[in-house]
């Protein structure tokens, strides 16, 4: 079974040379730490920066240079700043190749819910609805089940949706799943996790075709 860093490490393998990538808050942010250093990748943050770098050294923080999580950041050589409308032109216009974000629920038809729990304080969707409605390649980073052990990989989302039919891949603490034809396809197992365990933790339709390899991390 993977921890958050393990999930991020596995997702980092999906990042290819020449990709512009938008990372959501939470586990997705960790992905940047594990991208191979022999490929060229630029990270976009929707508040208006392309070519995000690591956190600044202490004393070098700049209040005018933050990411979408409102954290102080630095920029890489070749970086650029732009306004919010242009930022979402990059996203909506499909210029950003890959979006990685977290979710509360994912359904077998590709629906995603990650912004609102009825009865709880709603903080808002931020840029998530724009991101999921536009990106062609959306990877969701999440835990397979909730704290009560109930599946978050569902036939149908129960929470208010963020987007419909948009998720292409899910990486959880247990497995890598592909979402297509209204089904989840089991591609890989987390180290030490059996197919049966994954089946038991998955409420949505799970297709297990042949031998399922263990992830190589």
């Amino acid at each position, binding site marked *: 079974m993977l921890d958050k860093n393990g999930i991020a490490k596995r997702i980092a393998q999906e990042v290819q040379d020449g990709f512009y990538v938008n990372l959501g808050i939470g586990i997705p942010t960790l992905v940047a730490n594990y991208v191979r250093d022999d490929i060229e990748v630029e990270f976009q943050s929707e508040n208006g920066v392309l070519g995000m770098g690591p956190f600044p050294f202490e004393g070098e923080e700049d209040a005018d240079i933050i990411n979408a999580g409102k954290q*102080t950041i630095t920029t890489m050589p070749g970086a650029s700043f732009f*306004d919010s409308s242009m930022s979402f032109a990059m996203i909506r216009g499909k210029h950003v190749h890959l979006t990685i974000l977290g979710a509360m629920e994912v359904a077998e038809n590709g629906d995603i819910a990650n912004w609102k729990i009825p009865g709880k304080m709603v903080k808002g*969707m931020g840029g998530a609805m724009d991101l999921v409605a536009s990106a062609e390649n959306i990877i969701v980073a999440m835990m397979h089940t909730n704290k009560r052990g109930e599946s978050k990989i569902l036939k149908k989302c129960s929470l208010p949706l963020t987007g419909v039919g948009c998720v292409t891949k899910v990486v959880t603490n247990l497995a890598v799943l592909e979402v297509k034809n209204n089904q989840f396809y089991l591609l890989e197992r987390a180290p030490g996790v059996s197919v049966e365990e994954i089946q038991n933790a998955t409420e949505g339709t799970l297709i297990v075709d042949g031998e399922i390899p263990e992830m190589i991390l």
Partner: protein
Amino acid sequence: MINKKVNNVEEALQGIKSGMTFMLGGFGLCGIPENAIAELVKLNVRELTCISNNAGVDDFGLGLLLQNKQIKKMISSYVGENDEFERQMLSGELEVELTPQGTLAEKCRAAQAGFPAFYTPAGYGTEVAEGKETREFDGKMYVLEPAFKADFAFVKAWKGDAAGNLIFKGTARNFNPNMCGAATITVAEVEELVPVGQLDPNNVHIPGIFVQRIFQGKNYEKRIEQRTVRQRS
């Protein structure tokens, strides 16, 4: 040169009334019009509708207007950092219209650019699209979103001149350029008001035509919401 310069924030906010709709630039506390917000608190105008990506924190940014119960309605994409906001929202004192961030930016830009509305894929099939016109283009569904209408836009820039030309710094740019010219009157406050002719026209981000009033701001706090650093190895 058409002069847009006013002497101070008091002059810049002339004509402000209760019940108006304002646009306010900024992402979190980054690039917010600190001087205009402080003056709005002083003027004590009420029943305001505020269009702003976020709602500040409890003791800064739009949080100051919330503390003073001056805001009737917020139109934002994310409002998570503010306890007073949460209290007013849950008690029903404050109306909140949550809007996807890209849609929020584009509703500003559409107002700036003279588009009455636009289609976006964001929010299709979700509660954001409820009651809105939808349409299919090339097999994909889109939602019709109208441009914003506002009385004043308050923006903050790094440098500007009396002609109203603006240059922004870093990610403090965010929604500010999209709000310029998107309201009846755009008020720009700048960290540095430079003599006309000093800004290289090649480097101007927002031409002065989109700005009605500009003033030299003062006492910028530029608070950091999440100070994240790495250790020197």
